[in-house]
C-alpha cells in the first residue's frame, strides 16, 4: 500500500510535468511565435482543448499530498511559502488569460491577456524550478536564491522545448515552421518531466517514511482506485478527440 500510493503520487507529479509542461511552454513562447494577433489565436487554440485536462494533474497532486502524505504537505507548502504564492498567482493569471482573452472584442483586451498568459507561464516554470531545487536541498536554505534561479531556467528551457514540439505536432509546418511526430512529442514530454522524476527518485525514501497510516491509505484505495480506469480513459479520450489528424474542423476556439 505504501509503495502503491507513493507510486500514484509520483505518477501524478511526473504526469503533470509531462502534460502541462507543454501548455506552460506554449504560453512562454506565445509572443515569440505569435507575432500577429491571428497567429497568437492559432497558438492558443492549438493548446486550448488540452489545458483543463492537463492542469488538473497538479490539483490531483495536491490532493494526494494531503491525503497520503499529510505531514509532508504542511511542511513543504509552508516551507516554500513565497514560491507557492508565486506559483499560484502565476497559475491564476495564466488561466484568467486563457478564459478571458476572447470574451471581449477589443484588440488591446486580447493582446493584454496574451501577455498575462506569457507572464503567468514564465512564473509557473520559474517557481517550479526553484521549488524543485529547494526540495532537493531538504528545505534547509532560503527558498529563493541563485541555485534556485538556475533550476528555474532549466525547467523553463525544458518546458519551452516541450511547448515548441507540441506546436510542431499539433500545427505541423505552421507557427514553428517544423513538423513533429507523436513520438517526438513523447520524447519532449520526457525531457520536461526529467527534473522532477530525478528529484522524486531521490526523495522516495523520505516520502515512504512520512506516508499516512494504512487505515487512511485503505480508504483512499477503496474510494479512488475503482475510478482510475475512468480517469485514464477520459484523458486518453481528450488526446484522441483533439489529435491533429482528427481535428481538421472549422471551429473557432473558445479560448
Amino acid at each position, binding site marked *: 500500500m505504501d509503495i502503491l500510493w507513493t507510486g500514484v503520487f509520483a505518477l501524478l507529479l511526473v504526469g503533470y510535468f509531462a502534460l502541462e509542461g507543454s501548455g506552460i511552454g506554449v504560453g512562454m513562447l506565445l509572443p515569440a511565435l505569435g507575432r500577429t494577433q491571428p497567429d497568437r489565436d492559432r497558438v492558443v487554440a492549438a493548446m486550448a482543448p488540452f489545458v483543463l485536462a492537463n492542469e488538473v494533474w497538479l490539483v490531483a497532486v495536491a*490532493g494526494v499530498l*494531503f491525503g497520503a502524505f499529510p505531514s509532508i504537505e504542511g511542511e513543504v*507548502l509552508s516551507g516554500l*511559502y513565497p514560491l*507557492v504564492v508565486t506559483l*499560484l498567482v502565476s497559475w491564476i493569471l495564466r488561466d484568467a488569460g486563457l478564459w478571458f482573452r476572447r470574451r471581449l472584442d477589443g484588440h488591446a483586451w486580447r493582446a493584454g491577456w496574451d501577455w498575462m498568459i506569457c507572464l503567468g507561464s514564465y512564473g509557473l516554470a520559474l517557481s517550479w524550478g526553484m521549488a524543485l531545487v529547494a526540495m532537493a536541498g531538504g528545505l534547509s536554505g532560503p527558498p529563493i536564491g541563485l541555485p534556485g534561479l538556475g533550476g528555474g531556467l532549466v525547467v523553463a528551457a525544458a518546458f519551452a522545448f516541450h511547448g515548441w514540439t507540441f506546436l510542431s505536432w499539433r500545427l505541423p509546418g505552421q507557427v514553428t515552421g517544423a513538423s513533429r511526430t507523436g513520438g517526438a512529442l513523447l520524447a519532449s514530454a520526457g525531457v520536461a518531466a526529467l527534473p522532477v522524476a530525478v528529484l522524486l527518485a531521490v526523495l522516495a525514501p523520505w516520502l515512504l517514511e512520512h506516508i499516512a497510516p494504512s487505515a*487512511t491509505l485503505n480508504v483512499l484505495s477503496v474510494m*479512488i482506485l475503482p475510478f482510475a480506469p475512468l480517469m485514464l480513459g477520459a484523458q486518453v479520450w*481528450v488526446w484522441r478527440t483533439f489529435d491533429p489528424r482528427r481535428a481538421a474542423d472549422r*471551429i473557432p476556439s473558445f479560448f
Partner: protein
Amino acid sequence: MDVLDLARTQFAVTGSLHFLFVVLTLGLAPLVAIMHTRHAMTGRPAHERMTRFWGQIYVINYALGIVTGLVMEFQFGMSWSGLSHYAGDVFGAPLAIETLGAFFLESTFLGLWIFGWHRLPRWLHLACIWLVTLTAYVSAFWIMVANSFLQNPAGAVERGGHLVLTDFGALVTNPMLTMALPHVLGAGLWTGGFVVMGASAYHLFRRTADREFFTGSLRLGVVAAFVGSLVTVGFGYAQFGPVSLFQPDKFNGTPLAGLGLGFMILIGQLLQALIMFVLLPTVYWLPRWRWAHPILMLITPLPFLAAILGWLAREVGRQPWLVHGRLTVADAMSPGLTKGMITLSFVGFVGVLGLLAVVDYLLIARTVRRGPAAVTLGADGPADSTERAHALSL
C-alpha cells in the same frame, strides 16, 4: 491585525469568493444539462441556442470557481499546517478523494464538453455535461464531508497526539453533513434558478428580439428556484437538530454568527414565500408582466448573499476551534508563518482574485446583455473572415 487574524481573513475572503462562484456552478450545471438533453433529443435549434447561451454563462462563471479553488486547496498546507499534522490522516482523505474521484473527472469532461461542440458524437457530448454535473455534486459531497469533520470530528480518535481514522462510515454519515449537504445543493439550484430568471427578466424588460427564448428560460428559472427553495428551507430547519446537539452555543457565542444565521433565514423565508405564493402560481403570465421584471432583476443577487451569510454562521460559529473541541485555529497555524509572508499572499490572492471576480461578473453581465446571438461557445463557424483562413487549418 496580527498574523493569525490576517491568515484567518485571507482564508475567509478567498473561501467566500470561491463559494460565490461554486454555488452558481452547482445550480447551473444541472440546468444546462437538462437543456442539452432537450437539444439532443429533439434536435431543435431553439434548444441548442439555450444550451449554448446558458452554457457560456456557466463556463465563464466556472473559470473563477477553478482559480479560487486552487488557492483554497493549497492554503491548508500553507497557513494551517498544524491541521495536516494533527488531523491530516483523517481530514486529508475526503479532500484527496474529491480531487481524484471528482474534480479530476469534472475538469477533463468539462474540457471535452467546451471544445467538443460539432466534434464529438451527439450522445457522447451530452454524456460529458451530465458527467460534469454528477462529478460537481460528488465534489460537493466530499468537500462537505471534510467541512463536517471540522464541525464534528466523527469517525476518528486521538492516538499519540494526533487523530487517526477509525470509522470511515461514521465520517461520511456525520450528522453535521447529512442535513447540510442538501441545504447547500438546494441553495445552488435556487441561485442558478434566480440567475436564469433575472437574466431572462432583463431581456423581456428590454423587449429584445429573443422573446420566446427568454419566456421559456424565465419559467425554467422560476421552477428551478422553487425546487431549490423547498430543499434549502426544509433541510435548513433540519440542521438545527444536529447543530444544537454538537455545537449547542454556536449562534450565541459571537454576534457575527447569530447575525449571519438571522439574515440568511430572513432572506430565505421572504424569498420562499414570494416564490411559492406569487412567482410559481403566476409563472405562465410572468414573462408578459413587464412591471414585474425589474423586481425579478433586483432580487437575483439575494441567494448569493444568503449563501455567504450561511457560511459565515457555520464557520464563525465554530470559532475558536478549527477541529471542534480538539484543535484551535490558533494552534493550527503554520509555525514559521510571519506577517511579511501572509501579507504577500494576502495581497496576491485577495487582490488578484478580487479583481478577477469583478471582471468575471462584468463578463457574465455582458454575455447576458448581448444575448444568445453573440454566444461563442459551440459556434459552428469562425467569428470573422480573418479567422476563417486560420481556423480551416486547426
